[in-house]
């Protein structure tokens, strides 16, 4: 196309690009020289060596071990783990909620479909940040104090300091290696058999994971001493032992799921309505029951339409999890870009590392989405 341009246009083609490039280069150069000057006056230098320094502050919630002696790199890893934890739980809950509400939305029962419509219209049009604060400051704060906590079977406790449930840990004294080897071998065997018999990666994964879970239960039944179960109990003003889900995490996860669930419900409704009515009618005419017609004919087709926007919604949830800062849940942005940046003043390094991390996670989720999308595509001749 370039070669057929008349001389005047060719000049515009090249001239505009060269000029823009020159302006951008000049701006970047100016910014860098400003940066160097600013770093000089503040006596800072660039580099990621600060990651090995001791952080010296506490983190309120972590699924990984952490102490005041941990380094800033540990802070980064823990923040990332907390972000991923919220994202994974939120994505699962939002999908379940959204698909259920979306199905209710297309139900023939008007009461059910109207209830779903009200849910969608209410939660879609309220700011997410407000919803997070509402769950945190109003709903969860209204729960009783630990001493008056709701008690379920003396094992599960719900109070305004969090939800406590029994947790297990592996006894390090027990000789684990033969058991682990046996369970993993069994899992591999089952996964391979599952794949060979059904030619489906899903069946293989399910049978493999199932073998691990069942193996764990068998082990616990034969050798109860191998696994320590810790049950929460009241200890002064709070519970100790067991595993606790703090209100910060709970508010964040609930608000993210309810908010994104409303969007997913609309996606599900759109996808179901996009499948032609003739498809359902033909399936019914063939003698399939309503349930089978939906499961075998409508749903697979609607999945194909649903997957790309659904992945996009999950990416939104990942990004929205950074609102954790509003309730003080220690996610990546809160502990790393917030606390660690305040302590070290390394704005440039910290912000760029966090940016790269978010972009990388986004790319991984997109890649998974592309795989799922490819597996639901119509296979043509």
């Amino acid at each position, binding site marked *: *196309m370039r070669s057929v341009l008349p001389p005047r246009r060719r000049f515009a*083609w090249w001239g*505009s*690009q*060269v000029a*823009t*490039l020159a302006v*951008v280069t000049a701006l970047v150069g100016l*910014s*860098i020289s*400003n*940066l160097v*000057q*600013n*770093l000089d*006056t503040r006596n800072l230098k660039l580099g990621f060596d600060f990651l090995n320094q001791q952080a010296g502050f506490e983190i309120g919630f972590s699924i990984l071990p952490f102490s005041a002696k941990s380094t800033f790199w540990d802070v980064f890893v823990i923040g990332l783990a907390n972000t991923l934890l919220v994202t994974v739980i939120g994505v699962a809950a939002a999908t379940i909620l959204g698909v259920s509400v979306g199905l209710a939305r297309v139900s*023939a*029962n*008007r*009461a*059910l479909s109207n*209830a779903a419509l009200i849910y969608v*219209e*209410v939660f*879609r*049009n*309220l*700011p*997410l*940040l*407000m919803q997070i*604060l*509402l769950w945190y*400051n*109003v709903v969860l*704060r209204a729960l009783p104090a630990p001493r008056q906590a709701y008690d379920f079977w003396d094992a599960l406790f719900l109070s305004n300091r969090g939800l406590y449930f029994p947790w297990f840990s592996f006894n390090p004294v027990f000789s684990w290696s033969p058991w682990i080897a046996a369970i993993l071998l069994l899992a591999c065997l089952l996964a391979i058999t599952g794949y060979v018999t059904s030619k489906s990666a899903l069946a293989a994964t399910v049978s493999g994971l199932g073998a691990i879970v069942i193996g764990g239960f068998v082990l616990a039944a034969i050798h109860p001493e191998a696994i320590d179960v810790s049950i929460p109990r009241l200890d002064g003003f709070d519970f100790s032992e067991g595993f606790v889900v703090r209100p910060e995490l709970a508010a964040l996860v609930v608000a993210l799921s309810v908010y994104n669930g409303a969007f997913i419900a609309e996606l599900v409704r759109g996808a179901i309505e996009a499948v032609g009515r003739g498809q359902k009618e033909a399936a019914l005419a063939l003698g399939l029951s309503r349930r089978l017609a939906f499961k075998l004919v409508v749903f697979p087709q609607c999945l194909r339409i649903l997957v790309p926007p659904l992945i996009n919604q999950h990416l939104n949830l*990942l*990004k*929205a*999890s*950074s*609102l954790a*800062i*509003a309730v003080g849940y220690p996610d990546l*942005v809160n502990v790393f*870009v*917030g606390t660690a*940046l305040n302590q070290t003043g390394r*704005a*440039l390094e910290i*912000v760029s590392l*966090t*940016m790269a991390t*978010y*972009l990388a996670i*986004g*790319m991984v989720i997109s890649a998974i989405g592309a795989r799922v999308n490819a597996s639901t595509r119509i296979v043509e001749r």
Partner: protein
Amino acid sequence: MTAVPISESPAWPAASDRAWRRLKANYFRNARDGMTTLFVVGLALYLLYLVIPWAILNATWFGAGRADCQQDGACWAFITNRFGQFIFGFYPSGQQWRVELAGGLFAIGLIALAIPGLPFKPTIGAFVLFVLPAVACFLLAGGALGLAPVGTEQWGGLMLTLTVATSVFGLSFVLGLILMLGRSCGMPVFKILSTLTIELCRGLPLVMVLFMAITMLPFFFPSGFDLNKLALTVFAMALFQSAFFAEVFRGGLQAIGKGQYEACTALGLGYWKTHYLVILPQVLRNTVPAIINNSISLIKDTTLIMVVGLFDLLNIVNAGTADPNWLGSTLEGYVFVGLVFWIICFCLSRCGESLERSLRTG
């Protein structure tokens, strides 16, 4: 043959019978369906039973503190007492007519645009889009022509929310168009720059972008260069949103057939005329629903300026609940904020639908 009255014929049941049948088909097809209906209706009634006495029957509407409020009802006195602050923030009370005037001008402009069949609509539209924001900026900030200057740190409440929302919308709309044209114009330099900007902004959380603007950006400016926090925030949000607008516009662009370009070339139109007269009007018309959706999420996202310490509607209400005089009024505050946002967003989506209908071509 005897004439059978229509209402008695079996194929045409009486009105009450029809209503009953419709009720049965829609709500009580079978036992499970009926139980679902009863459950949903029961749940709705229970919620109303909880909400109405709290929000209306036992509510206190006016008062000077939480102590004036009834125990088992909503304390709307919190809202009515601080209403001025929630709307105007810390704007000096003698100067609030400026905010009202700016808001009034926008309201008149928008109403004029909404009246069907009014003449000079393009002129009014251009006035609202380009002249009014400048006038409003001048009115709010002041500092010349005898208007006392009001620093942006005194702006707050609903007024700040709407200011940020409209300026971010205007900036990101234009920036989004530029990015879209850059990405699709076929010139490598523009394409790479636009694609880089778009993908970077789309992959990052807005909180992150705001933090970047506040903590990292000052490093790239000459030292001692005073950056206004509000301006930085608006710029960062506009850049962030423009990536989403650019992708929306690109989707609209891809729906336009090759024939349109070929026809323009045949007519001898250049690049700018082709886009201004033929392509962009179609792109904008095709993308109205997506533009409205983006605007709704943009307005909801303005609440995020809380993290950089600006007092928008949500943050000023949130801060108000910490007042010892009003302790325990959190729920009332959030309900008020929620109502305001919900009404704005709901109206926008309804306006969008009617705009979509009126723009639909045969």
